[in-house]
C-alpha cells in the first residue's frame, strides 16, 4: 500500500464537498477553514498470512472561530451520515461497493467521529473534529 497515495485520494474525495476551502493529504502549518486534512496513521500489519494491513487514518476538519456559533454550526453540518455535506458519505462513496480509492486499497469505512473540540494551528485556534477512517489493503503483489 502506498500511504501517500491513500492520503491524497482521501483528500481528493473530500475536496468537492460544498464549503470545503482546502483539502490536504498532510497536516498543514496554516489553516484556511473550512480546511480538511489527512492526519496521523496507525497500522496493524499482518492481519492475514498474506500481509493484509488494517490502517487507521485520522482526518480532521477545521472551521473558523471568528463567530463561535456559526463556526460550530458549520462543523456540525459536516458530521452527518449522508447528504451533500457529509464527510463520511464523500469518503465511503456508493454503499455496497467497496471504496478502493481507485485501486489504492481494498476497502474503507468511516466508523467514528471524535475529538470535537478546539484545535490550535500555529498561533490560531479553530473548531474541529476528527473522523477515524479505517482502511484495509495489501501490497499489490499479494
Amino acid at each position, binding site marked *: 500500500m502506498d500511504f501517500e497515495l491513500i492520503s491524497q485520494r482521501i483528500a481528493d474525495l473530500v475536496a468537492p464537498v460544498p464549503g470545503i476551502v482546502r483539502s490536504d493529504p498532510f497536516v498543514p502549518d496554516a489553516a484556511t477553514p473550512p480546511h480538511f486534512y489527512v492526519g496521523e496513521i496507525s497500522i496493524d500489519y*499482518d*492481519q*492475514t*498470512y*498474506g*500481509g*493484509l494491513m*488494517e490502517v487507521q487514518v485520522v482526518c480532521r476538519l477545521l472551521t473558523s472561530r471568528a463567530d463561535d456559533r456559526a463556526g460550530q454550526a458549520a462543523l456540525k453540518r459536516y458530521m452527518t451520515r449522508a447528504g451533500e455535506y457529509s464527510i463520511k458519505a464523500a469518503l465511503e462513496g456508493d454503499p455496497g461497493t467497496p471504496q478502493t480509492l481507485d485501486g489504492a486499497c481494498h*476497502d474503507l*469505512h468511516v*466508523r467514528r467521529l471524535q475529538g470535537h473540540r478546539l484545535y490550535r494551528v500555529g498561533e490560531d485556534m479553530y473548531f474541529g473534529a476528527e473522523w477515524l477512517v*479505517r482502511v*484495509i489493503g*495489501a501490497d499489490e503483489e*499479494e
Partner: protein
Amino acid sequence: MAELLKNVKLYSGGCDLTGAGNKIDVTAEVEEKDVTTWGDYDPATDRVWKAVQAGTASAKLTGGGFWEAGDPSKVDDALWGQLGGVGAWSAVPRGAAVGDLAWLTQALQGQYQLLGGVGDVAPWQASWSSRWPLVRGVLAHPPGTARTGTGAGNAVEHVAVPAGSHLYATLHVLSVAGEEAAITVAIESDATGDFGGSESTRIEFDEATAIGGQAARAAGPITDTFYRVTWTISGTDPSFLFVVALGVA
C-alpha cells in the same frame, strides 16, 4: 526456540488461502481404547493401572480469515464449491521453499461460515475432517514459480516408505493461463538424488486444465529417499502456478 506464526500458507483444492487466511488449527487425535485386564493388577501397590491402546485416528483442520469473492481462486467461490466434498488440503507453516515442512491430507470440508457484523472486515471460517492420514511431509514444488513448459523440479530428501505405509501427495493448481493449457504432474523417486536415469515414477496426478486440487498416494515399500516433482505441459502460451506437498505415513 519458539516461533511466531507469520508466514503460514494454506491450500485447499485449487485455492491459495494464504492471502485470505489468518488462522489455522490442526488437531490430530487417536482414540484411546481401554484394554485393561486382570493382568494389569500390580500386587506391589495393590492397584490396577489402566491400560490403553490406540484406536481410530483422525484429524480436524480449521481455518479462518477475511472473505473475498469473485473468481474461482477466491475463498468464497472455492470453499462454497468444496463444501461437502473431499479434497486436497496442505499447510506450510514456515517458508514456501522446496523441502520446507508441510502438513497434508485429503479431507472432507464439513463447515463453512461467513460474514459478520456491521463494520467488520468480512470474515470466513471453515473446517475439514481428514479422510486420509494427516501426513507430516515436505513441500515439493513452491507456489510462486510459474511453469510454462515441461520440466522437473529440485530433488528433496525425505524418508523411505516402509511396507504397509504409503507415499502421500497433494497437488494444488492455483492458476492456469493459455489456450487449451493442460498440465500433468508426477512424483519420481531416486536412491541418490541425481535423478540421472535410475528414477521411478511413484505418483501421477490426473491431467489438470483448470484450478483445482488432487490428492494421491502410492503404497510402499519404496526404498528411495529422494523425491522430485515433474510436469508435462501442453497448450498455447501455457502458464501454471501449482503447489505439491508429499510425505510418508
